[in-house]
């Protein structure tokens, strides 16, 4: 196993829980020391101005980059990675249960509805939440092809849309401190359903995935890994095994859809 040095700004460390991630991957990652030369991997916070920060780090020859919870920007602002693996660390879309859930959504009927809702505590995060929801749908194999705004207020939003195959989408966010932040996906088909609940990555509490068919309900095995850790594992593999990542190009597509419904600043 190749150990890679990690560097991050203060904001990125906090937003991505980087110290706990490094502690949980000690054979793969090590924090870059103060006197280290160029780190192998760099994390940039996804707050306003993130495309420039990411472009700067890519221009300085890093081997891999993590963008943590990006806020929406114009698709054209998303930097080009030029062969450097880049992983976007989403709070929900990066959860390792999403891959299993994608199997449950394979061959999803075109007339079967999919709901994606998020509970969040801060109305200032609504843009980030939307980007995360769109990334989740994409990773489930059900990317939003259409999206329209129904409501958008400080209390949250309601959006309607459709996947490329025509499945109706209802995308919502609810701002409350009443319960921990979480993402919930429910697919309702004529003869079955899929329910996925992804907790916030502040802990390694596992996602809950259940698939309901005519024969019964099957719960997927618990995966005690945060989306943050899963993102860094993926980046390590991409760098050491020279695997490409599509995170930035996928993000550009999702931002193009998000741009249709985001309120004008």
């Amino acid at each position, binding site marked *: 196993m190749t150990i890679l040095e990690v560097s991050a700004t203060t904001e990125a460390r906090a937003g991505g829980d980087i110290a706990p991630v490094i502690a949980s991957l000690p054979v793969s990652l090590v924090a870059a020391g103060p006197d280290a030369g160029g780190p192998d991997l760099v994390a940039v916070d996804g707050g306003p101005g993130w495309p420039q920060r990411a472009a700067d780090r890519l221009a300085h020859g890093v081997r891999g980059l993590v963008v943590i919870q990006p806020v929406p920007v114009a698709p054209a602002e998303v930097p080009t990675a030029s062969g450097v693996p880049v992983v976007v660390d989403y709070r929900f879309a990066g959860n390792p249960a999403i891959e299993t859930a994608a199997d449950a959504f394979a061959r999803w009927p075109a*007339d*079967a*509805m999919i*709901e994606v809702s998020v*509970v969040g505590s801060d109305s200032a995060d609504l843009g980030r939440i939307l980007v995360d929801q769109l990334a989740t749908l994409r990773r489930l194999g059900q990317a939003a092809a*259409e*999206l*329209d*705004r*129904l*409501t958008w*207020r400080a*209390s*949250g939003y*309601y959006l*309607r849309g459709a996947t490329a195959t025509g499945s*109706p989408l*209802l995308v*919502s966010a*609810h*701002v*409350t*401190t*009443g*319960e921990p932040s979480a993402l919930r996906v429910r697919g*309702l*088909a*004529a*003869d*079955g*359903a899929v329910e996925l609940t992804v907790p916030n990555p502040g802990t390694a509490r596992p996602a809950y995935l259940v698939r*309901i068919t*005519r024969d019964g*309900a099957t719960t997927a095995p618990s995966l005690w890994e945060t989306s943050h850790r899963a993102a860094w594992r993926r980046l390590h593999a991409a760098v050491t095994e020279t695997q490409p990542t599509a995170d930035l190009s996928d993000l550009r597509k999702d931002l193009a859809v998000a741009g*249709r*419904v985001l309120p004008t600043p």
Partner: protein
Amino acid sequence: MTVAGTLGVGILGSGPVTQAIHLPALARLTDQFTVRTVMDANDATAHDVAARVGARATTSMDDLLQDETVDVVAVCSPHQFHAEQVIAACRAGKRAVLCEKPFATSTDEAASIAQVSAQTGVPIVVGAMHTYDPGWLAFTQSWGATRGSARHIRSSAVLPPNPRFEDFATEVVNREPMSTPAPATSAADAHRIRDGILGLAIHDLPLVRAFLTDIDDIDVHLARPLSPWGYLVVFSCGDQTVELHALISANWQPDWSLQAYADDRVGRVEFTPSYVQAGSATATISTPSQMVRLGPVDHNGYVGEWQHLYDMAHGQPPLYSSAELIADLAFALNLSDRAATAVLGRPEPVAAR
């Protein structure tokens, strides 16, 4: 078997709701009620259902209302007969009337019912069972004032077709075959939405309305039918937004719930399916520091509404006033009209594609 001191029950309409809901509920309340007369337009159905409970069968409403052993009347007939039958039962001097929802097809009819109820002094219970569910009642007591307390309200009813539950509850006779859906046109879709709201969402619209402040200001953002039978409706009343969805399909697992999202708390009420006497709803109220769980208890809202009918027949005040019942109906009718209009008009939403 007749228990001394019980109230005699007359039932107008003996379809699956009577067979699979009310008779099983009354079987749990034999110390309070005895079914005396069962009426149905179909003579065979009336006799079959009456025989189950040792009651008299008739095809005549007047015959049932003239029966002096009938103290209280349950109106379980098709919607269009509700107002006429409730009014007739009040004028016949019965002690109380239970009317299945919706208790009228217009607010004028509802006002007439309320007027006759007030004139005759005969109290009325509308069979919106979730409003009498002990889980909901415990939730409202713990939550406190509901009006204006939540920004987003979500009502979801994912259910198998009724016969799945009816067949667990009883052995239904003379069940009408399922109708074949009409081809998907705007008019047919509008009809489906209206039927969905007045047939299924109406169970929970009184609960939704309990949270809303500006119920006359309904702005429907989205209304569409879901396949094979269901609906998705999103609307706002002022700064509060409501999502209603329902799907009746081959999916065997029911999920019938109500959520309320407030700034600092989230409420959830999870109801048991109709028919199966599976006890009350379970409610939770989450705050930043704790989650309170309420229920379940062993009886559902149907038993609750019959118990309330018994109490009202013995002089207890109604849980919901006539004004509240009329407001619930007006809200449901207004919403169904606006949602159907939205389907017909297909208005474009706020954002451009």
